[in-house]
């Protein structure tokens, strides 16, 4: 087991494409995406009932190193500022398929 940061991003699904490009540019090795998230925030209720993606959020989970986490949050700041959403960072222990722990 090794210590990692859990970075969670929740934002409008129209942003997903852009965020993934950012993550890939940083060569983040792995992340997970949960689509179809509803929510409430400064921009009001996101019903998830839209015919377009405009009214659905997406949840992104990234387990990464502290330095990667800092790079991600720095990159997310302008995005969230522009499009709304949140970014949480927490601690976790990581059991990778690679590790022999």
């Amino acid at each position, binding site marked *: 087991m090794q210590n990692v940061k859990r970075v969670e991003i929740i934002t*409008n699904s*129209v942003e997903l494409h852009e965020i993934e490009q950012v993550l890939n540019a940083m060569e983040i090795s792995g992340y997970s995406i949960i689509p*179809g998230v509803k929510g409430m925030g400064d*921009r*009001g*209720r996101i*019903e*998830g*009932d*839209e*015919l*377009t*993606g*405009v*009214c*659905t959020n997406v949840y992104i989970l990234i387990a990464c190193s502290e330095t990667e986490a800092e790079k991600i949050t720095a990159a997310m700041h302008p995005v969230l500022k*522009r*499009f*709304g959403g949140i970014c949480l960072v927490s601690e976790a222990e990581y059991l990778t398929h690679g590790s022999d722990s």
Partner: protein
Amino acid sequence: MLDLFLGNFLSAPVLFFILGMLAIAVRSDLEIPAPIPKLLSLYLLFSIGFHGGVKLSQEDMNLQIVLTLVAAVVLAFIVPVYCFFILRLKLSLANAAAVAAAYGSISAVTFVTADAFLASTGQSYGGHMVAAMALMESPAIIVGVLIVRLNASKGEGSRIHWGELMREACFNSSVYILLGSLLIGLITGKDGYEDLKPFSDGIFKGVLCFFLLDMGLVSARRISGLLEQGWMPWIFGILVPPVNGMIGLAVAWLLALSHGDALMLAVLTGSASYIAVPAAMRLAIPEANPGLYLPMALAITFPFNIIVGIPFYDLVIGKWTGG
């Protein structure tokens, strides 16, 4: 005349739409979960596009058709501009531009509902009107963004990726599937149509009713959010569409379009987009409030058009054609 409105009001599609709105009013737990509405809307675009293409394959290209398509595009560029100046009186730059874009663009479901209306009145329209619809969806997006771009202080504005935007404008899913199905219908023609008829034609009206039930739910949910926005959205959302529609009719009259084609042009000019445009605006003008442009198009103008607008345009055309 009253019969016309009543007849439309009491047609299955409109009644199912109202049934959906009432469900929210009485707080029923009725909901049509995602992604079913997406499936239904893709189906409707698929069918209307394909059918349009098949009809187009029967028509022979003539000047009137070309002029209609040109006029449609011109309208799609002009309407958002004057809408913007009206809206700017009350709204911020970003909001005015976004709402203008929505009203400059079109609502495919309103078009589809008008298709069902025409069928019930025994009228028909040309397949090229479907092409007109596809052509009219995107220009307003570009206009809306340009307006912001030109007026915006550097910084924000400079963030817009034009490549992305044009792609979004020209290849967004609804334009793409509409044009694609149109082309395929055009290629396969009448014989190709026969095999697909039970799917793209037979169950069409039923699916429309089912979809409008969901549209009723979705638009009613949005109304509450509008109440904070004051009276402006209501005035604009109910007065401007018929004005736009009448301009569409004027053009139709100049081009001497058939009853069906004229109605469709009016419906396109008079309708507002709550799918393609909001998606583009969310990306290109994030500072605009989706809680404004989305419900205006969805909860005010869409119901207005399918309940009052369509028969109203039909009536006006009837007057001049003396039909």
